[in-house]
Every structure is written in structure tokens, then in C-alpha cells.
């Protein structure tokens, strides 16, 4: 008996660990489904990454775009989300089921779907797919990539940080040291340097792949932010998904320090409302706009194809102005925006080596 108990304890701790990861994406019990009286006849299938609707970030933003499209075009929708630690074959099953049920187009939220989308899209050339944040040279033509120029909004965030720092030290917290987040770092560094070369940027990544917990661990974010504050950084840009909330908490506790949020307008999030006074701005990544535009293009029979980049010009990325903390540097930001959209400034996508 003792052996079995020991075993059970281990299994439980193991699965609890996994479950606690999954629990980060506690979702609202009510999700939209098929069955709405749709007039247009378009059926959109959404496959979310782990967390799904209700993750207060990336997936929610995509869901907002879907909801808006649904309200405007009267389309039918079905949604499903990935499970933590599921196999690629599960993602394929999910997409195939959507195809079988007649959903077209199908939107896959997150780069984790790349392989699955490619495989399923090849088998069903008449179904249109969209994938967010990813593309590959081998994907078939019925796959549309929806990507963002995160480096541009991060560049603006860098300008804001550099303009507000008094100690000439600013910080960057990346959730996971992945290619995606390196784009944020690169843009931010360039933005800071464009204002004042002498400002130093402290960079902390919470985890390194394949450990993706850096996107979902507020405690790690808090610790990293505390470390940077102790080093004298007074503006911190936290591009770390849900871990960013920890960083925001830590920064809010220190008088005179600012934090820059990411993806959505974090000052507007109910859970973070009490830290509004410390949130300088947020580097927006409007996944909702991308999803909405894609569905709209299908509805108008002029589907977006290939790799679609949502940039500063098209409003795909930008800075939030909630709280009015960056109103005083508006002229500077507008000038930089102008330079980027006109092509005069090209923001790097990879941070300096080392």
C-alpha cells in the first residue's frame, strides 16, 4: 500500500504542476458557439493557444476581434483551445474537426499551430486558414499569416522610456527568450538609443525555451522587476504575457517608477486598474484588428493571402494613451511614428548579439 500511496502522491504532484499551468487561463464559463442565426453563411472556426478565451492577453485579443466580426457580419463561430502539453496530433485533430464541421475560414491563434495548420491545409486546399504570429516558406497558398511588427511599437515604448527616465537606466523584461520576444527587445533598445545613446538598458529574460513558463508566472516577473528597480532602473518594459502583471505590481510599489505594459492596454484591465498610476503606456499588438480584417476580407470575397504584416501604419501595433502619462511627449512620439511609417527609420528585429 505504501508504494501505491507514494506513487499516487507523485502522480498527483506532477499533474497538479501541469494543472496549475493550465489554470492560468481560467476562462469565463460562457463562450460563444455555433448556432447563432447567421445571415452571411460564413462559419469561422477559432483554435486558440493554451489559455484560450479569458487569458487577459493574446487569446482574448483574438477573441475580441472574432466577437466584433460576429456582431458586424452575423457569422457563425466555434472556438476551442489547446491543452497544456498536448501533442501536435491533437492540434491537427482540432483543425480537422473544424474542417469536417464545415468551418471555413479557420483561424489558428499562435505560432504553436504552424505545423498542424500546414498539414491540414495541404489536405484541404479549399479551406482557408489563418495563423497568427507565424509563417513558413513551405506553407500552402490557402494559409494566410497574420503578423505584427512588434519592434515598431517597442521602439515607441523605448522612446517613451528614455524620455521619462531620470536615472538614465531603463529595464526590459522578456517572458521567454524566444525569437518573438527578441523582436520586442530589439525595438525597445533602438528606441531608447534614438533618444539618448548614454541610457543603459537592463535586459532580463524570465525563462529560456523550451521552458515557456516565463509567460505565465507573475512571481518571476515580480522578482525580475524588483531586481531591476534595485539596480536603479526607473522605467521597465515588461513584454512577458501574464508574468508582466507581477512586474507591474513590483513597479507600482515604488514611487516614481514607471512600467510599460504589452499586447493589450493594460491600464484598462480590471485586474490591474489599481496600478493605473504607474502604467506609463502599453505597447499594443492589436490581434483583434488582424482577426477582424481577415474575416472582413473573406466576407468581401477578397481574402487576404500570403504574409500580412500589421504595422504602425495600419494600426496593427501602437502605444496606448490611457492615463495621459505620455501626452507631454506626444510630439516626439508622433515624429518617430511619422519616420517609421514613411520608411525613414527601419527598426531592427534582432537585438545585438551577445
Amino acid at each position: 500500500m505504501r508504494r501505491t500511496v507514494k506513487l499516487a502522491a507523485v502522480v498527483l504532484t506532477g499533474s497538479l504542476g501541469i494543472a496549475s499551468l493550465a489554470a492560468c487561463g481560467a476562462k469565463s464559463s460562457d463562450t460563444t458557439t455555433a448556432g447563432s442565426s447567421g445571415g452571411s453563411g460564413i462559419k469561422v472556426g477559432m483554435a486558440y493557444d493554451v489559455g484560450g478565451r479569458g487569458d487577459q492577453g493574446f487569446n482574448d485579443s483574438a477573441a475580441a476581434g472574432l466577437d466584433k466580426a460576429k456582431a458586424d457580419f452575423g457569422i457563425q463561430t466555434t472556438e476551442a483551445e489547446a491543452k497544456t502539453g498536448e501533442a501536435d496530433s491533437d492540434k491537427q485533430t482540432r483543425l480537422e474537426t473544424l474542417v469536417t464541421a464545415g468551418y471555413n475560414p479557420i483561424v489558428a491563434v499562435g505560432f504553436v499551430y504552424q505545423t498542424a495548420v500546414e498539414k491540414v491545409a495541404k489536405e484541404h486546399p479549399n479551406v482557408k486558414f489563418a495563423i497568427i504570429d507565424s509563417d513558413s516558406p513551405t506553407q500552402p497558398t490557402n494559409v494566410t499569416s497574420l503578423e505584427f511588427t512588434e519592434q515598431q511599437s517597442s521602439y515607441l515604448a523605448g522612446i517613451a522610456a528614455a524620455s521619462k527616465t531620470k536615472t538614465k537606466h531603463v529595464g526590459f523584461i522578456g517572458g521567454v527568450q524566444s525569437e518573438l520576444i527578441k523582436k520586442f527587445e530589439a525595438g525597445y533598445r533602438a528606441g531608447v538609443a534614438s533618444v539618448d545613446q548614454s541610457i543603459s538598458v537592463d535586459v532580463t529574460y524570465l525563462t529560456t525555451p523550451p521552458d515557456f513558463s516565463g509567460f505565465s508566472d507573475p512571481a518571476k516577473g515580480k522578482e525580475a522587476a524588483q531586481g531591476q528597480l534595485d539596480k536603479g532602473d526607473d522605467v521597465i518594459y515588461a513584454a512577458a504575457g501574464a508574468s508582466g502583471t507581477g512586474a507591474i505590481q513590483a513597479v507600482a510599489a515604488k514611487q516614481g517608477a514607471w512600467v510599460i505594459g504589452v499586447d493589450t492596454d493594460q491600464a484598462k484591465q480590471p485586474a490591474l486598474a489599481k496600478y493605473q498610476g504607474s502604467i506609463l503606456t502599453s505597447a499594443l499588438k492589436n490581434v483583434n484588428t488582424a482577426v477582424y480584417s481577415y474575416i472582413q476580407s473573406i466576407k468581401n470575397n477578397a481574402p487576404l493571402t500570403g504574409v500580412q504584416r500589421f504595422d504602425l501604419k495600419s494600426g496593427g501595433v501602437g502605444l496606448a494613451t490611457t492615463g495621459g502619462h505620455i501626452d507631454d511627449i506626444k510630439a516626439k512620439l508622433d515624429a518617430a511614428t511619422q519616420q517609421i511609417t514613411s520608411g525613414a527609420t527601419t527598426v531592427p528585429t534582432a537585438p545585438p548579439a551577445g
Partner: protein
Amino acid sequence: MTTTQPAKRGFLQRIDRERLILALAAPVLAIVISVLICSVLLATSGKNPIDAFHIMTNFASASDGQVKILNKATTYYLAGVAVAFGFRMNLFNIGADGQYRLAALFAAYVGGAVNLPSFIEIPLLLIVAMLVGGLWAAIAGILKVTRGVSEVISTIMLNAIATGVIGVLLVPGIFAPGNAGGVSNSIQTKTMAASSNFFTITTQGGSLYGFVILAVVVGVAFQLTLSRTRFGFDLRATGRSESAASASGVNVKRMILTSMCVSGALAGLIGMPDLLTDSHYFGQNFQPGLGFTGIAIALLGRNTPIGIGFAALLWSFLDTTAVMLPLQGNFPPEIVNVMQGTIVICVVVAYELVRRYGLKRQQQRVGAQLAAQAASAEKKEVAA
């Protein structure tokens, strides 16, 4: 309880059938209880549980669903056997998780670097995977025999270290080629040559992993090793009582090291069905957590090859059909996690209940027998 029922040798023949029923009773009881718990959960959240189970069984009765279930069960079976091998001698190899991921990374790297004919390449990759898994497990084995470090602690630590090692190695320039166009956010090893494709069996419902056969071979070998070889006997003996085993001349330290390595080598195979049949590269989102799934499956299957087979099928059925739940009826797929969790808890409780019941039955029978003997002895005395 597992097969360790003391003082039953005399009964073995007679209560065999009863034992079988008792052995089946526990898992069945566990599944029934967990189905009930999940039904209550679904019903209280205003959803019809019958519909949910209907969706699941419906998918499982379709041919493509069955192929998917079998494919996944193949991976799960290997995970279960890898863990069970250690469990049979009381070694808790919690580290299968790190072992198989590291093994798959190295196998994928080697597979990307060489391009040999299939009949050399595939065995080579399997051997690489088993070697890496075995060596990684050997660290825990060596620590245990030389320093007395509990393998539970060391293998858990090694899981975290394996994650770190993969993070260090899986970067462009080391195990991954430089970013070859595209803004793929996933970094992965070079895709392996076509010669590394493991064969698949084409069926109505799609292609079935050829690894299904390998899994059966592993299961048979596992059973034969345990029941027909001296090594297997030593292993079981050590599992039951280390001191008794060493008194009878078993080199316990060597047994620990060997079985840790074998368990790790088997764990090395866990990632292979996916790697050699589906993905052909190791990416940052290579499926993690199979080692822990393996522990649950080994526990449910009572560490026997056949039991693990059923457990793997059950787990795979649950995981595969879970994907359908939100799509076909707006059910939360998490209900499957609840079900798996309750099965694990219930199975422990059920085994204990069944064991007590079995013991009681035995005692009653012994009592009855003794009474009968006494009665007949008395009769003889009277007759004399």
C-alpha cells in the same frame, strides 16, 4: 496492492479466478466512480453528461478516431512500460520526462546530420535515443548507489536540468540551423531525411504508427525479462525486499544501476513515434509531460504489460476524444483532466478496498478450512 500478497502461496491455485476478478474490480470501480463524479460536475454546470460521453464514444467508434487513439496509445504505452520497469523493483523513475525529451533531441539532431539508408538510420536513431535516455537516467542511478540520493529527488531535479540543457543546445548554431527564412517563432532541429521515416500501416482511418508493433515487442520483452530470466527474478526480488535479495546473493547496487539505465533507455523510446513518423524534427514545442502520463498509466495498469496496455488505451481514448468536446457540444475539455485525476485517486482507493476485501475472504476461507480440519480431527478422535 500490486502483486505482493504475502502468505498466499497455498491458495494460489484455488483463488486464481477470484484474484482475477478482484484485480479487474479495482480499475473498473475507479472508472465508474470517476465517470460518476464527472457526470455530477457536468450536470451541476448545466450540461448534459450523457451528451458528452456520447461525443467521446462516437469519435472513438469512427475509424479515424480509432487510429488516432491507437497512435497516441503507442506513445503512452512506451511511457508506461519505461516507468513500470523501475517500479517493479521499487525504483521511482520520475525522470522519464527529462530522459525522453533529451533522447528525442539528440536523436533528432543525429537524424538531421546523417542521411543513411532506412535500415541503418532507423536502428541508429533508436539506439541513440535509448543510449541518451539510459545515460541520463544513469546519473540518478549512480547518485543513488554511491551517495544514497533518493532517485525520486534526483530524477525530478534532472527533469528540470534536462529542460535547461535542451534550452542551451536547441539554439541556432548548435543543434538548430540558422533561421532559414520565415518568421517562425519556433526553433527546431534540421528536418530529418526521408529515410528516417518509420513505416506506417495504411488503414481506412488514416495511417497507423508502425511503432504499434514495436510497442507490442517491448511489452512482450518486458514480460519475458521479468518472468523468465534470472535478471528479472533478481529485479523482482530486489523490489520486494532489498535486504532479502542481497542476503540471497543479489548485487543490489548493480541491480539499481542496471534497471535505472534500462528504464531510462525505454523512456528514450517515448518520443520516437512522433519524431520518426510525424514531426521529423525536435522543436521547442515538442510535447512535454509524457513521463508523468507514463507514471499514471503504469499505476493504473499495475505495472504489468497487459494492464499498461489497457491503461494506455484508456488514457489515449480520454485525451483524443477530449479534443472533440468543445467543438461538438461546447463542453469544457478540462472535464477529461478531472476524469483522469479522479481515476488515479480512485484506483488507489479501490485497490486498497479490494485488497482488504480479498484478505477478508482469505481469512474466512482459512478459518472455514481450519474449522473443517478440526471438526474432522475431532471425528477421528471420537471414532478411535
